[in-house]
């Protein structure tokens, strides 16, 4: 509902934009709009700071945001921040990319072959809603504590939305689109790569946009459980030392990294789907 309203408003303001408006006015408007949009976050940050300093909670229960930011700054200078963030990103993104390639491939195969569908359909229906993190001890037993097991956990979780989105995207292609490609002499392979894949791309992108935060979450949780370097692991170390500033620093770092990833993905979507009517609408994420 909100999305629809927003799109309507944006269209309204776009028509109201006069061509003779100066560049300055445009920049000013954009800045104002940006400020308005980030206001809730700013308010939350201020509330955190004020509440933490009010004396209602101890420093241990909730350190003020400024203290947490100071800690993050400290980690950044020491270089730990970049090692931990880099490792977590490496695990999350590698897992995500594997899920993307394998998930789209599996989705395409399942769309094409009844045997593949017969075999994988029940597996996916059972596997998707299952909490895959429950397999973590087994994965550790099999693959050890290192990156392989963490990345496997990410793939194991993130692949499901990609497969289902690919299947749904391909199933939803207008039959006349397929027919017209056939009419012009496309063979099965060309039909799959040149027609089905781009036609299903909006849905596949939606699946990937779901899979990316999942990849991030699973990477952090796997790190928290298995320990070692990485944002999740570092957070658990701080926790063991009862350093709540360190734990909160981890939470803020994870939030920022997650936001950047999701934002980047939605920008990529707009680039890739430049042909789609949605590309001319304002971003909602």
């Amino acid at each position: 509902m909100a999305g629809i309203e927003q799109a309507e408003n944006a269209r309204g303001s776009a028509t109201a934009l006069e061509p003779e408006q100066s560049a300055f006015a445009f920049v000013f408007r954009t800045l104002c709009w940006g400020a308005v949009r980030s206001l809730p976050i700013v308010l939350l940050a201020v509330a955190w700071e004020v509440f933490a300093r009010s004396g209602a909670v101890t420093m241990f229960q909730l350190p003020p945001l400024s203290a947490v930011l100071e800690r993050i700054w400290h980690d950044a200078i020491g270089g730990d921040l970049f090692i931990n963030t880099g490792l977590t990103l490496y695990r999350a993104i590698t897992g995500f990319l594997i899920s993307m390639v394998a998930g789209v491939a599996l989705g395409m195969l399942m769309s094409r072959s009844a045997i593949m569908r017969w075999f994988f359909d029940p597996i996916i229906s059972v596997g998707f809603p299952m909490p895959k993190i429950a397999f973590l001890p087994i994965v550790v037993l099999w693959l050890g504590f290192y990156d392989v097991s963490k990345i496997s956990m990410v793939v194991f979780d993130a692949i499901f939305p990609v497969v289902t989105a690919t299947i749904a995207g391909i199933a939803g292609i207008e039959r006349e689109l397929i027919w017209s490609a056939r009419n012009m002499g496309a063979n099965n392979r060309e039909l799959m790569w040149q027609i089905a894949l781009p036609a299903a791309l909006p849905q596949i992108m939606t699946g990937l946009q779901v899979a990316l935060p999942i990849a991030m979450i699973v990477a952090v949780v796997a790190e928290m459980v298995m320990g070692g370097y990485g944002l999740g692991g570092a957070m658990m170390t701080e926790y063991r030392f009862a350093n709540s500033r360190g734990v909160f620093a981890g939470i803020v770092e994870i939030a920022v990294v997650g936001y950047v990833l999701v934002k980047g993905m939605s920008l990529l979507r707009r680039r890739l789907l430049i042909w789609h009517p949605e590309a001319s609408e304002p971003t909602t994420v």
Partner: protein
Amino acid sequence: MSGQPQIVIDKVCHTYRPPRGKPVLALDDVSLSVGTREFLALLGPSGCGKSTLLYLIGGFLPIERGTISVESKPVTAPGPDRGIVFQHFALFPWKTVRANIAYGLERQGMPREQREARVQSLIEMVGLRGFEDSFPSQLSGGMKQRAAIARTLAFDPSILLMDEPFGALDAQTRHLMQSELLSIWQRTPKTVIFVTHDVQEAVYLADRVAVMSARPGRIKTIVDTKFDKNDKNIFKTKQFVDQVDAIWDLVRDEAIKAQGGRES
């Protein structure tokens, strides 16, 4: 081989079986022959199975009862010998106008330079110059329709199956496109099956007009309508007007039946 018409449709039936709901008998016992280089218009009330018939000739839907043969060979699959212009355009939304039109030529392996020249000339012909790099979502309905026509004409099929190809055009553009189609048809050997709701257009363009009955579709009547297509004043002659009126009556009867017998 020699004596047989190019397209022979023999006692074809088609039933749609939606996954849920009752089967729909769309075509019932349709027989029709179309000669080489003939221009046949197909008229009939909405929902009588005109599109379905084109899909069957195009080889997109399986033929369950009856036979359709083209050049004496039974139709089993789609092929570039039978180019179709879909009622809802079916342009590839992720390709620009230029890339849409070029797709069939790429599949035929036409060299790049030759292909670009051909695509450009088709773009000019349908009046889409300046919109070569637009995506279908950025075009109006009539522009999409013209792009779809250009895309099908591009790969030069010997049989053209056109499903209300001018339905989204204004009267002026429609006239221009009609004369373009006629001049292509007169220049290059093409057989055309042309679905329309515009009786005047059908009588003007076609050699024969087939009127279909309300669903389940059958061929109700076939009328010869050979008028001089180069005569600008043909629309005003009495023969032409009478012919249009007569066919209008046939179509209207069926349209009323399609509405369930209600007179509008």
